[in-house]
């Protein structure tokens, strides 16, 4: 099943914001729920990254690879990386996968691969 991460397009000014804000960060003028829900694109460019060697206790991996990506539509997102040797500026593509599990829940988010 193809999954998406959704962003919120303001019906007043057209700005696409992610994550959700009750009031649009661009026009600061919308009324309640004046957004269209739009899927975020899954291609983009890696802005920066890190390998975290003391990941939170919900993870059992040696390190967690994290990055910020600028997507094709200009939106930015923080996600996990599944890339051996990441480089700033490289083209990446995303899959939506489980990115965290705790006792009760699993959470889906973007995992990036080399494009």
């Amino acid at each position: 099943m193809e999954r998406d991460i959704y962003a919120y397009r303001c019906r007043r000014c057209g700005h696409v914001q992610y994550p959700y804000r009750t009031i649009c960060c661009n026009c600061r003028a919308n009324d309640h729920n004046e957004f269209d829900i739009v899927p975020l694109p899954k291609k983009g460019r890696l802005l920066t990254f890190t390998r975290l060697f003391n990941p939170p206790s919900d993870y059992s991996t040696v390190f967690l690879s994290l990055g910020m990506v600028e997507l094709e539509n200009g939106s930015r997102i923080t996600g996990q990386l599944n890339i051996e040797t990441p480089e700033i500026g490289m083209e990446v593509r995303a899959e939506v996968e489980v990115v965290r599990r705790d006792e009760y829940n699993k959470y889906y988010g973007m995992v990036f691969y080399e494009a």
Partner: protein
Amino acid sequence: MRDVYAAGIGITSFTRLEYPLVEIAAYPGLMAMRESGITKIDQLYVANMGAARVNHQSGLASAVVDNLSLTPAGAETIENGPASGASAIKQGFLAVASGMYDTVMVIGAERMREINALEATDFVATLTHPLAEHIYGVTLPSLAGMFARLYMEKYGVTSRHLAMVAVKNHKHAMDNFYAHLHEEITLEGILDSPDALTNNPVVADPLRYYDMCPVSDGGACLILTAAEIAKKTGKPMVRLAGVGQATDTHAVHDRKDPTELLAVREAAKRSLAMAGVKPLDVHVAELHDAFTILEIVESEEVGFFEKGQGHIALQEGYTELGGKLPINPSGGLKAKGHPVGATGVGQAHEIVLQLWGEAAKRQVKNAKVGFTCNFGGFGNNVVCLTFIREG
């Protein structure tokens, strides 16, 4: 608004403390009252970030006001993440400036070592955006790692510059009895020697162990009062002359240029403008170096140096004790320690001590204008204070 003065200070060691949080908060309060001779407190503000989660205690201020037998004075707990301390000072300032109270006690206290380091990092990670950051396993060190990589690429800062911040602040802390880390380190030991990867392992690359502050317990206190009462203490008159606060996006990726800390820039500008001074009028500063990279970037954003020049100033010794503008003479968060809710009050403690001329071996000569930057979240809520010694 009437003028507000810093009339009393107190502090515990920032380290692992084996006594209850309420006493970690109370002890610096006792010190401040005893030293200043001020015992009539109208209102207590207690800055704390995690007592409810970490120490299973909520309503901390109610416990502290009773422990100090200051009842029936008013008491409030202030939580603003790692900027709780300076936020509580801001509330105290407003209370005295407005004339509502004559004397307020501001305490910052945190006991993070009651849990292990991993749990403590998880606790601090609750500051991140729940849906856009936290679910991915993002923690503060990882945000700092991503920030540092981008910044280093853009401005030519190297791991060596970052290590210089650590070496400097560890050296400063050697003369601070209350500092967490009394451990002199060298570039050789943490960077160049064959053992450096063991001594100084990678935590969130490019950041390594010695680029991060320790997890500390600790408390600090600042008594704020009106001029007439401050005069009676016999201490030099130190006025809290500027209070500035600013915010930025919750998710770090949302910032137009993620290498800029706009909340620092704005909060510093507001604080200095209110005090009527310019960045280069500052003689001594305590900046929020939870990660070494932050000291460099904050020193630029507050206006001490041009953007991209902070690491050069550091390298030339401009920011060490004996330099033109010493930054973090206390050892900073890096070596003095970072008991999150207490940190902002701890920074003010150091500046007041410096402006009183009582900082002993780490005294900055003729310091008259002091500045603190207390950085909440990853730069999403910043409070800057400017202190001026009169006369």
